[in-house]
């Protein structure tokens, strides 16, 4: 692959990753958020695919397929089912901080990601290293979602964004992760999501809602 096309493709896929992260914070409808998560999964898979093709690494291609299946299909499907069970038009009604403030926070977090990745950027000069801040930004977005959303499914979304961010950084810096490691991590994530999904439906049957603030009544 020509290096210019490679750079453009890396830029494009990381751009989509970042944009879907922003929109995940912006939108409050859970359906839309799950769709965005699937988009993000596709973009991540494309990124890995591009890296694999560039380095002609068969193992990376396999990882790309794995990422595609898991992050773009399986996990979103699980979430879609959970959301569907919650009813039509479910939204994150009352985030801890309002959307406007989270969006402003988002721009500052992005700048922060860009600033803290300075030392990493000295490692190399290629398009992959310059895109590292995007991964870090995604990690921060995920944390923001986890910290400010009340709905159980939103929390799950935040966790998955966080995981996508970590995966992005790993792929971009290490130029890929061994298949075995990726397989293990993926299974872990799948397991966490399944457990949380069961937990969500349990919370719902207990409290009639999936608002995590209700859990604070469980103390003592």
């Amino acid at each position, binding site marked *: 692959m020509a290096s210019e096309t490679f750079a453009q493709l890396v830029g494009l896929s990381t*751009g989509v990753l970042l*944009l879907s992260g*922003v929109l995940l914070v*912006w939108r409050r409808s859970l359906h839309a958020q799950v769709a965005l998560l699937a988009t993000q999964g596709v973009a991540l898979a494309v990124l890995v695919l591009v890296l694999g093709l560039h380095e002609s690494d068969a193992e990376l291609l396999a990882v790309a397929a794995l990422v595609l299946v898991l992050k773009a299909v399986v996990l979103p499907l699980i979430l879609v089912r959970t959301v569907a069970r919650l009813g039509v038009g479910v939204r994150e009604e009352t985030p801890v901080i309002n*959307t406007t403030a989270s969006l*402003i926070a988002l*721009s500052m977090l992005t700048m922060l990601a*860009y600033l803290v990745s300075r030392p990493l950027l000295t490692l190399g000069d290629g398009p992959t290293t310059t895109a590292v*801040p995007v991964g870090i930004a995604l990690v921060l977005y995920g944390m923001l979602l986890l910290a400010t959303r009340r709905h159980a499914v939103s929390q799950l979304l935040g966790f998955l964004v966080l995981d996508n961010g970590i995966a992005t950084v790993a792929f971009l810096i290490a130029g890929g992760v061994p298949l075995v490691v990726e397989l293990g991590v993926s299974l872990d994530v799948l397991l966490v999501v399944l457990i949380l999904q069961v937990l969500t439906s349990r919370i719902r049957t207990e409290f009639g809602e999936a608002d995590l603030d209700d859990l604070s009544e469980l103390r003592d």
Partner: protein
Amino acid sequence: MSAGAAVVTVGQAAVLVALSPLLVGVMRQVRARLEGRAGAGVLQPWRDLRKLLGKEPLTADGVSWISVAGPLVLVASSLLLCALTPVLGTATLDRVPNDLFVVVAALLIGTVALALVGLDAGTAFGGMGSSRHMTIAALVEPTVLVSVYALSIPVGSSVLSQIVEARLDHPATIWSPVSLLALLGLAIAIVAETARLPIDNPSTHLEVTMVHEAMVLESSGRDLAWLELGSWLRLGALLGLLATLLAPWGVATEVTALGLAVAVGALALKLALIGSLLATVEVFLAKVRLFRVPELLAGSFVLAFLAVTASYLVAS
């Protein structure tokens, strides 16, 4: 150079005066057709304008000179805005470069004139529209400046003509993430600035939901004609700018008769396309609550800000 630049400057104003009412006509017609109505035809805004200019203006007792001068200031500032927007050619007058901040300032003069006309009437609706209008204008400003800032970084200049020229020279930059994010942010800001859906409904008849219409409630005759023309010109210039940034082809870098003719044709085509697109999207949109508007504007600000960040990433 200078004569050519003068031709381009005046030409841009003249062509946009001719095209903007048509643009509004096209948008209304597309919307009408999509909603299953026959529509009044593309030329209706021009007919409205002619009718209003021939009518007697009425002013309520106790209003000041602002009600008379405001519409004229709005239309003059809109004309300046049109003249400084590089939609036909990139030549600029030596002493009047179409610097981003001067262009934005021309826009803001019109905004303020409109808001004062609204206040001057001394009615509840006028004040309400004016207050909302200024609130939105205040919140839009950061997005506009930051998004064009992002576009200016690769060029190293805030002169719009140079930005357009650079895009003509390197078409690949148009599709870069920086450019797309910045344009998306700018598009939302333009929609807010020109009072289109989902920020404001230009065809509403319910006073309490109005923003733009509430301010012009008290104006009539030629005052109203100038207010309408001024607002249309702003829409034409801003959409023209967006279209030019998105597809700079056709803009004349050298001033020749043929080049300008092509540029006029290209501009008409671009405006028709972007207008129809906007009208189509509007059919599917409802006006958002006033207090959700800041969310939308904060979102557009984030996009513009990401564009700046991304431009550093790409560059380093």
